[in-house]
């Protein structure tokens, strides 16, 4: 069952000179209940912006240009006794609630979205190491989240729950009375995870959950996330530049580049039947510890700035497969399976399918073969700087 359905979401950052950075542009994806969905891409590709925008946590100059974020939840004031939206609310054209019970988070006011935050969607921020407030006890910070969303809970009950949550992620309950500086890096990360689970959210956004951590701790944290998912059935939206992390924990994923989703679909499909030049290039440039004699090939050029970009494919400047079409407009999402099995180039609106944004989706075999050759990438002349 779909938990989150992001539809044509575009996010911009206003810049002083009047232009706008198109941090995310017409993005579609959906997350099922209980699955782990990955957003992978290089820095500046818009993946973090995308995640933050779901609960309106963009920086001051960021805003949602268009698009919808349908999420399976109902604001308390719109809910009936079962927690489903009242019919009158669904019928009200001014209320962003769909007949299937989903609410368009993008249309909620600041006050309304606050009820969604943490209760429905919790975020483990990128700098989880710095996410604990140094002046409050760790336990109290968890209690704060619980009491915010469940005001009927007593302080004692919330405190018990906070200790329980800490214990679940492998921290002694009595450490709830400690301050963040008394925690090691791994413990801080776990504490934030415990905090994220405090209100039993349906979706957990983990923004680079392992980046600042040492490799052994990182390993433990990944395990922790997996355990939690099993235990609570929470959906996880993982954001990372680290393909290997994605390979390990995601069920499905989307590869982002320049604010656009380049390729999306089940993890295995993407890794094994890669269908986009960017993903192919990315794979080429990523070292792996198990391979003995690798040849890494980097993608020439640098990522675009996204400031008032033109209509062409965002990747075309660095793409060895670019053709005339690519300059005219960014390619839509094509159905990979259809292209592979039938050779037909068909756009797809199915967020769950393996999709790729490339006009040359029809020549997949050729792309894959050529992409392995280093010369394919190095011989092209790219527009410098």
């Amino acid at each position, binding site marked *: 069952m779909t938990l989150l359905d992001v539809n044509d979401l575009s996010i911009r950052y206003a810049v002083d000179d009047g232009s706008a950075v198109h941090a995310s542009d017409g993005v579609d994806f959906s997350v099922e209940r209980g699955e782990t969905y990955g957003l992978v891409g290089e820095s500046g590709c818009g993946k973090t912006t995308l995640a933050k925008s779901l609960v309106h946590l963009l920086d001051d100059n960021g805003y949602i240009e268009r698009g919808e974020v349908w999420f399976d939840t109902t604001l308390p004031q719109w809910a009936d006794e079962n927690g489903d939206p009242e019919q009158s609310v669904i019928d009200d054209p001014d209320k962003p609630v769909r007949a299937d019970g989903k609410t368009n988070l993008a249309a909620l006011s600041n006050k309304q979205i606050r009820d969604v935050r943490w209760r429905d969607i919790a975020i483990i921020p*990128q700098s*989880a190491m710095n996410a604990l407030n140094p*002046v409050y006890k760790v336990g109290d910070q968890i209690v704060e989240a619980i009491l915010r969303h469940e005001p009927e809970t007593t302080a004692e009950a919330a405190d018990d729950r906070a200790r329980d949550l800490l214990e679940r992620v492998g921290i002694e309950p009595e450490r709830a009375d400690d301050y963040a500086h008394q925690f090691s890096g791994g413990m801080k990360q776990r504490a934030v995870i415990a905090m994220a689970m405090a209100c039993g959210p349906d979706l957990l956004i983990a923004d680079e959950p392992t980046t600042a951590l040492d490799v052994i701790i990182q390993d433990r944290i990944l395990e922790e996330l997996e355990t939690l998912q099993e235990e609570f059935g929470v959906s996880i939206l993982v954001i990372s530049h680290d393909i290997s992390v994605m390979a390990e924990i995601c069920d499905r994923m989307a590869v982002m580049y320049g604010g656009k989703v380049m390729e999306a679909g089940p993890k295995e499909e993407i890794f094994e039947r890669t269908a986009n030049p960017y993903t192919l290039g990315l794979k080429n440039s990523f070292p792996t510890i198990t391979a003995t004699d690798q040849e890494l090939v980097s993608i020439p050029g640098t990522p675009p700035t996204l400031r008032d970009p033109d209509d062409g494919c965002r990747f075309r400047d660095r793409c060895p497969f670019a053709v005339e079409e690519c300059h005219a407009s960014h390619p839509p999402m094509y159905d990979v399976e259809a292209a592979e099995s039938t050779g037909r180039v068909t756009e797809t609106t199915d967020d769950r399918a393996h999709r790729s944004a490339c006009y040359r989706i029809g020549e997949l075999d050729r792309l894959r073969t050529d992409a392995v050759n280093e010369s394919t990438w190095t011989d092209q002349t790219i527009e410098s700087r």
Partner: protein
Amino acid sequence: MTRISGTYLAKRLVVSYLTLLVIMTLLFVLLRSMPGSFISSMITSGMTAEQIEQIRETWGLNEPLWKQYLDFMINYQTGNFGRSPTYNAPVADLMIRRMPRTLILFGATFLIGFIIGPLVGMYLGWWRGTKKDKSIFSTSLLLYSMPSFWISWLFIWVFNYEFNLLPSAYMFTQFPEFQWTAVTVMRDVLYHIALPIMSLTFIGWVGAMLIMRPTMNQVTDEGYVFLARAKGLSERTVMIKHAARNALIPVATGAVVGLAFLIDGSIIIENVFSWPGMGQIIVSSVLERDFPVAQATFFLLAVLVVIMRLLTDIVYTYLDPRIKFGESE
């Protein structure tokens, strides 16, 4: 939830005490190293040799230096600050009379300044770069560059001379026509303290604001502020409970510095507003070369600063749990 160990507190007290001993010694040395003898100001032309001798004796100048020093140190620690020649009274009595008045003025100003300043700094830091921030910030900088006595005269002119709303002098109504009761005393002090406090805090809060604003701005980028928002807390809660609370930490350090400025400012203000506190006698005792009073005044101000430091450190530990005094990591 004290994080201050008893031993640490004891240790700090000892250090504070030693600091005061050093200050006393400095005062002793300074007085004795005045050009000529410091009692020469007390000797007048008509005095007989016996009288001069008597003054020397009163001041213990006939004793060996170490004895003078010892007596001085013992006297000062027992609250015996000697006798003021101009006031013809024990200096301690004088201090007991005046100190509370200054502390009231100090305390109120300090409190108000350190409430308004951080609050404004909090808002400006939170909304840094906005038009509101820019205009308020530049206005406050303008204020900061004004001399406090000038502000005082301005206030006196407006509130006293032009509109006669508030008195321009004293702590109480002189020659009142009403009876002194707890209520009238309170009311009267508030009525009189209004202008001095306005004059002092009109500028005084800016210092705390200047510390608060940039730290507040830094804090807004911290992960815990983001997380607090992500938890669904209201902006107000995020700003006050999470951001401001952390930005306050350096403000506490600024408080000691602020105190020094306040002492400076209150000397002027007490004199402008005829507030009968310590600020007045600092000036007059120096002018009249009333050394016992001057000495005791400086000493008490030093005590005040030392106490303030101690308090700041204690406040600090409450503000910032990372600081854990008295225990090794």
